[in-house]
């Protein structure tokens, strides 16, 4: 028996629907069809009048969710792909994100963004938008990397009174399996040491955690002990854990799948440089995707995002300082 990452997302939604009648699901093709990725399979049947097919109106979908949240509901909105949240951008960053600050009324919405690249998905079905949303005050941005986190962080995210951007990685959906959904259950805002080490710290999140672990495995053969920190949430950022790790290793590589300008890796590197400069024995490094749209062809795609090879290369460079 095993659970996949997408199973965990489905289970969490099922539990939420069962236990909290403020929760409803809203998204394109999520009712009868069970969602483009089957994250809501069977839920419309099991919970009549709680799971709704939305029209192709991402902006209005988010607007509806804000209105429902004002009235005390806890909507979970599924964007069919993270990339299409660009249509809902205004309602997310200007309506949902500002509402509590302006009015004092919190907006407990969870927006599920199927994120990240898979081979052949191309420029508009592959984006990683966590670094865009995290720039806006008033949003919590979660990026689970494990089956257990996919489950618990969705539950915890929905329990928050603030709008949550829940970035789930499409590549992990069926590829990532676990014995059960019960891992160590950390609170939101706490990072995890996925793999302990002492020579360098890789800070990663979402699918890149797994690529980083692979890179660490390879370098272990050369005697290098690489510590991998899984941020889990990119806003808030758990700098305590990151800094403690860098204090142990003296070396930092931040790895992300998003575009290279700004974003999570820039925030991590600049905070470590600012707050933990004296801990660093070498220049902190970043590794991101390339500065082009995500290409369609699997060969280009594989060279666009960080891979175990490119992470190893970056680590070797970092270790050579």
């Amino acid at each position: 028996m095993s659970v996949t990452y997408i199973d965990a997302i489905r289970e969490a939604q099922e539990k939420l629907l069962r236990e909290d009648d403020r929760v409803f699901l809203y998204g394109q093709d999520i009712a009868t069809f069970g969602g483009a990725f089957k994250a809501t399979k069977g839920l419309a049947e099991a919970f009549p009048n709680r799971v709704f097919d939305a029209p192709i109106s991402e902006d209005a979908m988010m607007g509806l969710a804000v209105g429902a949240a004002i009235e005390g509901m806890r909507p979970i909105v599924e964007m069919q792909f993270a990339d299409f949240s660009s249509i809902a951008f205004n309602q997310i960053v200007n309506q949902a994100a500002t509402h509590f600050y302006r009015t004092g009324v919190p907006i407990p919405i969870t927006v599920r963004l199927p994120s990240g690249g898979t081979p052949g998905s191309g420029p508009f079905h592959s984006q990683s938008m966590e670094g865009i949303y995290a720039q806006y005050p008033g949003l919590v941005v979660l990026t689970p990397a494990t089956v257990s986190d996919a489950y618990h962080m969705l539950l915890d995210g929905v329990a928050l009174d603030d709008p949550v951007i829940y970035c789930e990685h499409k590549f992990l959906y069926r590829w990532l399996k676990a014995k059960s959904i019960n891992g160590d259950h950390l609170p939101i805002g706490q990072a995890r040491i996925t793999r302990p080490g002492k020579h360098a710290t890789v800070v990663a999140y979402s699918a890149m955690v797994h690529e980083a672990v692979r890179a660490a495995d390879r370098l272990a053969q050369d005697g290098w002990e690489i510590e991998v920190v899984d941020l889990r949430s990119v806003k808030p950022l758990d700098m305590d854990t990151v800094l403690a790790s860098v204090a142990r290793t003296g070396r930092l590589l931040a790895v992300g799948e998003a575009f290279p300008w700004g974003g999570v890796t820039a925030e991590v590197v600049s905070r470590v440089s600012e707050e933990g400069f004296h801990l660093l024995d070498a220049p902190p490094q970043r590794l991101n995707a390339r500065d082009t749209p995500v290409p369609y062809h699997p060969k280009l795609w594989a060279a666009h995002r960080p891979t175990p090879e490119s992470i190893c290369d970056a680590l070797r460079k970092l270790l050579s300082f």
Partner: protein
Amino acid sequence: MLRARILENKLSSLYKAGKIVGGVYLGKGQEAVSASLGTSLIQGKDVFAPLIRDQAGRTAFGEPLIDCTRTYLGSVEGPMRGRDGNIHRGRPLAGMPAMISHLGAQVPVVAGMLFAKRLQGKLQGVVGATCIGDGATSTGAFHEGLNLAAIENLPMVVVVANNQFAYSTPNSRQFACADLVDRAKGYGIGGHSVDGTDLLECAEVIGRAVRLAREGDGPQLVVAHLLRLSGHGEHDDGSYVPAGLRSGHHGRDCMEVAIAQLIETGASTQEEITGWHDEIAEEVQRAVAQAQQEEAPDPYREDWTALSTRFPSAQ
């Protein structure tokens, strides 16, 4: 609506005297429309999402004058606590969401409030309404929101105040249909056209639209025809409005028309109206004075966070 007019005249003077920062946006000429909507709604039960020119509707719905003066004057006691200003105010938990500037964005929000009430079994007899300008009908948000309300068959009324201009932009650069009410059929919802300068007609037509929505006939689109009698904001003299429009039927001041109607039908006398005027002017003066003597927000006492959650170990 008289209250709104007097209040807004006061806001205009305060702005011109440099006492209000940012901008002042008046509903002059639109009070008949806005008040008719506000009066048709039931505070504590219905939802009303006012827009730029809805002082009259706000007042009719029950928003206290002090909410307005506090927000315009930046009192920390106001509903927005100095964090947002002027028309960007509301009390969402009292059924009045606070508009964001992005036009059209309140349409799906009202739909969502009604949608939630239905899920909660509280929709019976409830109406949600919002106003919007001719210009804002060009937004994707308006289209998506109205279409969604139609799909869900929500008891929603959207009043379009076609005041001929969006800032300086005339109708001819905003849409190409004969009357915006022609859009109703394309959404499969009720459509109503009304002379926005005529209070009695507004009360009747908007009242009917609200009733239809309340009785389960689904979304209703009301298009009111009128002219904005001020500039876009008080910084704008509106000199681009052609004289012909000002002197034409749409240029009638709904307030004057309404007063004439009241007197004509014997519902009221000139003396009574003058009496109201004086009373209201005093009331407005009190609301202004109170807001002015209240404290401004203090940056040192602000908590400077946009989240309601406090994360212990991270930020």
